[in-house]
């Protein structure tokens, strides 16, 4: 099987970075460590910024980012391995009757100009804004592609991961946030943006425009265990994990 490559390997592999990646990384690590208990794989989140920063410093072997490396980051000799396509979508609480938003409305909301759901055809409730932290790749993509680089209002609540974004919105009927499409499930609802519902298919086909790739990054050419791990993510079994996590697998 795809795990054969790990048969007589051992050692520790440290992974950190993008929170969108965590479900894939966990599943892969679990499969590998179960097959060969001599291998230790540690996984930390932190956001894309952490991924780029720590792999550049050599603190981790694989640093994940949810955005392409900045030139300044790439300058440390990092090599990127895109392995999935993912969309970034606005999410609302399922109790919120609003099902349609335009890009201009989202920009207005995130600029703080629209502050009540009534203005958008919803209940009379304050809009509670949620955004991601500064290190987030998801935020970078969201601001660049959806907000057209308009700034996010300072009063927006800040959460530190895709998962936290989902749970915060899931608990607050007045909330609006954004997350990786892979994270969308029953607990939150993604309204149609300019008429397009952000689904995996829509992202794959390019119908839904706000998409990005998920990357693994290494410092220099990966060797040994690192190489095997990356290959495993690209393997058929790895691609299955990517799909299960809600993303569209990319080939090497």
């Amino acid at each position, binding site marked *: 099987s795809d795990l054969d490559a790990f048969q007589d390997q051992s050692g520790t592999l440290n992974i950190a970075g993008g929170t969108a990646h965590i479900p894939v990384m966990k599943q892969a690590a679990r499969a590998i460590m179960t097959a060969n208990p001599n291998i230790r794989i540690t996984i930390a989140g932190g956001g894309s*910024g*952490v991924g780029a920063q720590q792999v550049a410093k050599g603190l981790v072997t694989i640093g994940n980012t949810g955005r392409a490396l900045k030139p300044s980051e790439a300058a440390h000799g990092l090599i990127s391995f895109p392995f999935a396509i993912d969309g970034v979508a606005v999410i609302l609480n399922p109790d919120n009757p609003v099902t349609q938003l335009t890009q201009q409305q989202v920009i207005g909301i995130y600029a703080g100009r629209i502050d009540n759901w009534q203005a958008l055809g919803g209940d009379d409730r*304050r809009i509670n804004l949620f955004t991601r932290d500064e*290190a987030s790749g998801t935020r970078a993509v969201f601001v660049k592609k959806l907000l057209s680089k308009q700034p996010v209002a300072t009063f927006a*609540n800040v959460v530190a991961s895709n998962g936290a974004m989902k749970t915060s919105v899931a608990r607050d009927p007045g909330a609006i946030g954004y997350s990786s499409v892979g994270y969308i499930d029953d607990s939150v609802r993604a309204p149609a943006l300019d008429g397009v519902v952000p689904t995996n298919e829509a992202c794959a086909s390019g119908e839904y425009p706000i998409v990005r790739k998920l990357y693994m990054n290494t410092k220099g050419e990966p060797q040994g265990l690192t190489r095997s791990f990356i290959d495993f993510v690209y393997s058929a079994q790895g691609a299955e994990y990517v799909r299960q996590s809600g993303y569209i697998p990319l080939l090497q």
Partner: protein
Amino acid sequence: MMSHRPYPRLTSSMATLVLLLIAALFVAIGWFALPVFLHSSQTLLTFQWQPELGCYGILPMVAGSALVALMALMLACPLALGLTAFGLLVRRPWLATLVRTVVRLMAGVPTVVYGIAALFLLVPLLRESFRAGSGYSLLAAALMLSLLILPVMVSMLDSQMRPLMLQLRIGARSMGFTDAQTLTYLVLPRCRRAMISAALLGFGRAVGDTLLPMMLAGNAPQLTGSVLDSIRTLTAHIGLVVATEQGSAMYNSLFASGLILLGLSAVLTLTTRALLKGGQP
């Protein structure tokens, strides 16, 4: 009263070690922070944090830290005094033991446990009862912080007040003092030092706590006057931007925040010491 020769060499070498450690901490953080202050203080010391606009002002976080800690302290100080007094005044031993046990238990309650409980009880409560925000707010963080710092303050107060109380009780009773009077007029005035150090300790912990503000205060980098608004503290800011790209303006604000925090805590400590010195006969 205690003024005599240094006792064994071990203790003095340990003291030196600790002194060195503290120096190392300051040097390390100062080393990284000073260049930042020297080169980009205009961007740093402003009231706006909007990375998309290139605004990296950390003063909203400074205000956030100060506000949340002061509020927590204002709640916790009288409560700590009340709890300590209760432990000294109550006549039923089992009740005193119970309260003391609960307070000890509180000291052992991990911050994150308060955090998770408040996340699912206090935040929704604030959101639905005021309808003026998401519930992630200054108030939520301050309330939980006050619970967090209570046991430290109580045990600090109690360790000073209890021996004094026990020592004075017989003599005072023989003069017709009630226990409450002994406490109010004999013990409390002599525990000013303990009270201020308890408050200092509490404030330090409230300012220094990362988790509760990060989980409950909303982390919005804004200046606000409403206790129901979301704010970001310096500690939470460090926790959030430590993840950003090294060398960027955001990453640099990390050390600036660190130095401000360090400076704040040091100044606090020093003023308190000065205050106490002045107040003593």
